[in-house]
């Protein structure tokens, strides 16, 4: 399978902090543990003899498949984090993400309406933050997660300054 990137060539991408993998791992663990726990209930009940249906193989197969899928996603997390990148150009900001489903986004500075910085509990513990750009379009959804707090603040100031310089109407 040809793995040609969709990004425009000749861009020096800035990568997000590798510590962001931990944030994603925490999210992964929380979501999957709950799902697995719920799916494992029939297995426990069948094993303890409280339920006669479903058969043991089915009760075991469902959580096993889920576990496999979850492990597959787990293996992808470091690569997914590695695929997130951003680049500040003269007139616009580029953001890319994704391995299988790739997305490269360009947001002209003059189009930015406002910039958000947010941090969840895990991010905050690791000194990371998530930067979000808003334009007049709801479809933009420009997000750079896993920025070190200092870099996030620098980028926000930079974006605001550049946005002001190239301010355009709607």
């Amino acid at each position: 399978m040809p793995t040609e990137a969709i990004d425009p060539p000749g861009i020096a991408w800035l990568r997000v902090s590798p510590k962001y993998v931990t944030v994603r791992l925490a999210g992964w663990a929380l979501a999957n543990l709950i799902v697995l726990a719920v799916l494992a209930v029939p297995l426990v009940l069948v094993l303890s003899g409280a339920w006669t249906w479903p058969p043991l193989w089915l009760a075991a197969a469902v959580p096993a498949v889920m576990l496999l899928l979850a492990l597959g996603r787990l293996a992808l997390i470091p690569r997914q984090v590695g695929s997130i990148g951003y680049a500040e150009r003269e007139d616009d900001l580029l953001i890319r993400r994704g391995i299988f489903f790739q997305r490269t986004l360009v947001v002209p500075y003059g189009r930015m309406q406002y910039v958000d910085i947010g941090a969840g509990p895990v991010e905050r513990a690791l000194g990371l933050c998530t930067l979000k750009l808003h334009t007049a379009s709801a479809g933009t959804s420009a997000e750079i997660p896993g920025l070190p707090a200092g870099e996030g603040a620098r980028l926000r100031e930079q974006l605001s300054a550049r946005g002001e310089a190239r301010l355009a109407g709607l």
Partner: protein
Amino acid sequence: MSSCPPAVKPGWPGCDGSAVTEGMPDGAWLRVHPASPFVRGWVALAAIGFFFGRDTFERLLQGGPLIDEQFAGRAPWLLLGGGTLLLLTVAGYILTWYFTRYQVAAGYVRVNTGFLFRQQRQARLDRVQAIDIVQPLLARIFGLAELKFEVADAGESAVRLAYLRMADARQLRATILARAAGVADSPESPEAVEAPEHAVLTVPPSRLAGSLLLSEQSVGVVLGGVASVALSAVTENRAFYLYLIPAALGLVTAYWSMFNKGYNFTAAVSPDGIRLRYGLLDTQAQTLPPGRIQALRVSQPPLWRIFGWYRMQANVAGYGAAGTNGEGSARTTLLPVGTFADVLAMLSLVLPDPGTPDPVRVVTAGLRGLADPAGTPDRDADGGFVTTPRRARLLAPLGWRRNGFVATDTALLIRSGRWWRHLVMVPHQRTQSIALEQGPLARRFRVVDLVLHTTAGPVSPRLVQAGLEEGRALFEAQSARASAARKLQRSEHWLALPPVVEPVETPDLDKLDHRSEPDHRSEPDHRVQPAAKGQSNQKGPHHG
């Protein structure tokens, strides 16, 4: 205005004349028409009347005595209850009316509302995205109208004034537009004259009815009817038809609503922008100042191909994401149903500078064109459209010859759909952001999707399955074009510069050939405008 209610602080603007003249240089504080709360709240009044009057009314119908023993005991209570409720409602109406005041002055429109919870709102006039004058049936009977002032927040109208006298509403609209355009900003001439306008196209009711009969919905109706007849024949269940009654009622309502909204659709052009008027019982007049269209789509359902009809919808920042319900979708409709000539006429209004020497050919290709089946890049024959590469024809067996794009100097055109034909146009200076997207299957065929983000609305521009190289090149070129176009953007005061549109004379819709004007301007004027006399002095929003 003379007496100040005790709840109002002294010096409140509009409470006494002095405060007005001190704070605001011109423009008095005005109230909406006194009858408006009753026109708006007639349902509540009618409900109260119905609730308390029903007893007597039923008695009258049954021919019984008007007052009997049992009723005589209850009557005072009923009267008291009803009277109190009525009095409270009317008092509420009067208070709401009294405390609603508006003013147009110093580049702002201000509205104060609320009796217990005060609200003062001001909106900058040059931020206007659209002004609508709406007349629901009851208001129309009384000669009243509601004025809606839209700014780019994609939500509720920034300012809604319900109701004004029709003449006042039109005067106010003219004043707002004139000041927003930057022509009548002097305090000496506060009363602006309404900009002259010229009708460009109308939709005859017969065509509207025909378009509804041939719409997608009708196909569903016919299929559903056939299915239900077949089912009832097979199951021999005669009562089956009963279940169709609510469905039929719903359909009649839907068709009626579409007919009511689309009836007598008229588009006109004036220096203030495009004027759209429509409605059978409830009428609406929209004014879209120049350059307020963020994206537009021309589409054609399969059955409309018989008569060559098209529909046009647009994203306007102030209107927001319209649902499928009547008003919202009607407001974002630029043309409910029209011929190819109507489409061209409309395009010439919303996109005065198409940025290509032969716009008619490009639009024709965008609406009807198909790429060469052999996949040879003979793009000139196809209006310059770059389509999905032949290698991806398995991914889109029908659409690969249609899916394509062409970029003119001012806009990006994206076409798609073999049966449901769509042509989306996005002006370069209206693009908010651009994304390239690719999934695993698309990567195997080396194609990408390109998404243009615009403000909320019915149009969501997406170029599907463009070749990787073409898509990447377009992504780069488009972001460069978008920033270049934005740098050339004009002032918000669209008439403070050389006039955008002079009142045009009769547009001759028969002559659709593009005119290469031997004009005095340095830059050739390329527009979709159907050739018409007296347009040579019409300046498009050229940059400079």
